């Protein structure tokens, strides 16, 4: 999530081809590792429309600037930017409105200090927003970020999407020596579908020496200590973040053709620990 330029074109093309290969053979069973998981935390986002996210599970980040990403929105804790939709989803909504000096508002919520876990399966069922300059994300940060700072704390981006490419998501890890544009990443693309027209399940399965990335149960990337170009820092508790950014270095500026408001709908977030 915290990164500063686009990745190499060849890598992107490679990813696309790779994914198409998988996508067209969904009926073929991937040889996935068999792992047993037990639920340790979840939010199903059931409740009445307009209710703010459960404060025992989520905290708001409030302010503007996007923490180094040059984002354009002001993150608020208003129900207009983050609330249940009454249909079993959390809606994080980016709006075009003047607010505290920013031209857009949105929300960013995190489990920091409320729920943090090393390893396991982290998943969220999400329908993304769309439009140039819209940047939804479901990601993790190392819980020691306040003591050793980023990127030493580590970052795992389970799902990021550029609104001008609503059929492509990316999964990425950042750490010391491989952060920002040098993050270890891969994309998953639909050939003739989009992530904003239906819900999809985005997940990682994280062990001591691997992080596997999934879309709808399809493994599209495995990152191991051998793949990263620096220290492997994914060996301590991480917390989760859900947000919708507007603009910023990763996604570019919204245009006057970007439709607003734009909501990311989250059906649920669930976390599991591996058991034997």
């Amino acid at each position: 999530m915290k990164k500063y330029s686009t990745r190499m074109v060849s890598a992107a093309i490679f990813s696309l081809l790779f994914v198409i290969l998988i996508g067209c053979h969904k009926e073929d069973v991937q040889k996935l590792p068999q792992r047993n998981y037990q639920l340790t935390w979840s939010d199903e986002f059931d409740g009445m429309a307009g209710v703010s996210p459960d404060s025992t599970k989520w905290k708001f980040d409030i302010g503007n600037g996007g923490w180094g990403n040059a984002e354009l929105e002001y993150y608020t804790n208003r129900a207009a930017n983050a609330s249940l939709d009454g249909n079993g989803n959390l809606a994080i909504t980016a709006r075009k409105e003047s607010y505290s000096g920013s031209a857009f508002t949105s929300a960013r919520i995190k489990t920091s200090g409320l729920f943090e876990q090393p390893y396991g399966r982290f998943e969220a069922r999400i329908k993304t927003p769309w439009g140039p300059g819209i940047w939804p994300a479901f990601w993790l940060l190392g819980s020691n970020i306040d003591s050793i700072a980023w990127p030493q704390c580590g970052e795992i981006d389970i799902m990021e999407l550029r609104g001008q490419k609503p059929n492509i998501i990316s999964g990425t890890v950042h750490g010391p020596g491989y952060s920002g544009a040098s993050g270890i990443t891969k994309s998953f693309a639909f050939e003739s579908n989009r992530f904003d027209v239906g819900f999809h399940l985005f997940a990682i399965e994280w062990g001591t020496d691997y992080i596997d990335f999934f879309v709808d149960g399809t493994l599209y990337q495995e990152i191991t200590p051998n793949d990263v170009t620096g220290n492997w820092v994914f060996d301590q508790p991480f917390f989760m973040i859900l947000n919708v950014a507007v603009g910023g270095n990763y996604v570019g500026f919204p245009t006057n053709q970007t439709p607003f408001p734009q909501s990311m709908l989250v059906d649920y977030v669930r976390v599991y620990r591996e058991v034997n």
Partner: protein
Amino acid sequence: MKKIKSICPIAALITILLIGASCERKFDGLPLATYPTTPEVFVDGFSSGLYYAAYGTSKVTAFSVDYNIKYTGVASMKFEVPDTSDPNGSYAGGVFGTNPGRDLSGYNVLTFWAKASEPANIIEVGFGNDMGASKYQVTLTNLAVNSNWMQYYILIPNPSLLKEERGMFFYAAAPKNGRGYTFWIDDLKFEQLGTIAHATFGILNGNDSIKDNVETGDKYTITDMYATYNLPTGINQKVGLAVAYFTFTSSNPAVATVDVFGNVVIADSGWAVITAKLGDTDAEGSLTIHSKGQSVGPTDLPPTPTFAPDKVISLYSDAYTNVIVDTWNTHWLYSTAQNMEIQISGENVMRYWELNFVGIEFTSHPIDASAMSHFNIDIWTPNPTTEKTFKIKLVDFGENGMLGGDDDSEAEVVIASPPLATQQWISLSIPMSAFTGLLSRSHLAQLILSGDLPDVYMDNVYFSDNGAQPTEPTTAAPVPTFIAADVISVFSDHYTNLAGTDFYPDWGQTTVVSEVLIAGNNTLKYTGLNYQGIQLGANQNVSSMGYLHLDFWSVTSVSLSVFLISPGPVEKAYTLTVPTSGWASADIPLSFFSPVDLTDIIQFKFEGNGDIYIDNILFHK
């Protein structure tokens, strides 16, 4: 899964092709299509059955096949837009069609790549133009192209309708700043793309329009149908749609009907909302009808004017030869007024409706009314007139005869009720002196009607020279005939008046009050009336009286009302009809002035304009 470090590009391409085949939908078991489902229109040449027909007035040679410049393959479509001055046609345009038609119901979008010799906007492209009814036409207007190949998408709003479509593609392109340019289109084909999403549909540009005060028989047409959809690039595209994609519904067909072409006809009084659907999707936009039913209008004519033609400048009358009026409805911004001429007993009457204000212009032939003394107009309204006004404004363009130039002047006269009345002809004859502020009337160019009456029938609009106008009465007010015992008199030479009345209390008015002798009779004169009070010497109980009587005379006033006042103050106005023809008398039932306390009358007040003579102000049984 292990990350693969390299891959042979050719192998990858082959893989895609193989997968592409294996991923195609299988049509086994579906009924055979009656018409071919060929998706290609032009990829490297004309697809099966495709023909080209240039528009008749266009440059017919504008289209050709280009084997040098292409997006992919061996050829593209080249369109050479001519200069405006090209003798062979000043624009490029035509239709690509097939005969028989094709079944496009398995696709959701027409896609193509395009580039141009220079940045330009192609006026329109689309499909569904079959050179006939073009029932299912979809039009993308102002397509922005530049010198890079870019992909474009035109939505098929409801593919299930396109079982036999002949119109594969059409275009129209005009020169840019008078000069031609060239654009190319390639890989033009119908596709089924999951990357096109979030389609919405609408009528009336998405507006919820309201039509108030419509009448039985009025007609409207639903227009401005569109679809918006999100492109694979995340931005929205809007296209215009033919009416046949929509189904229309009236919430109340007894009030307004709507047919499949979006034609709305008002059938009766009441309320109805016209909405539309495209397939099962509700369309944005609606038309709300508030109908008052059958129109109410005059069945007879106003009195025929009696002035000699040489004493008249007529704008609108069958009794005279009319001067040239440029328009009876300028349709100025924010004016909702509509007008049409109707006939009553073979004579013309102008009808205005939805009248908020209407401009009437004779700027091409300004009127010199300097020799005229009165502006005349007959009006008839079906609307209630109580506490309503009708306003008449005259605008003089001054010496230069044109709007502006610091020599314009204008003035407006406000007509109240009475003389306004419902469902009867009212003949207004307004002295030109009442148009206070109209500095000249030798270059009159505009007449502006406004006020609170949305429905006005109008006839006999003319200036008249009524001859020399007396500036004051030549005779005394008529002598009242009430017996003295039945009278409480405030101002009259014929009765004993109440003592101590102050006829000039200072209430901040600008009116000049004087008492003049008219034929030896003391008469109250208000010069330049805005308002004027009368303070009685003592509170009066007039509850045993039946009427307030007064006589009044004015040739310059167009507004006059009299108030009776009890402590509070509690007051109520009665409108007197001015100007007068000679002395006019009013006997107003005191019950009219409720809730004024008739046992405790303290004051009178007059409001209005012009110069007024008043006499014999008294209460009588």
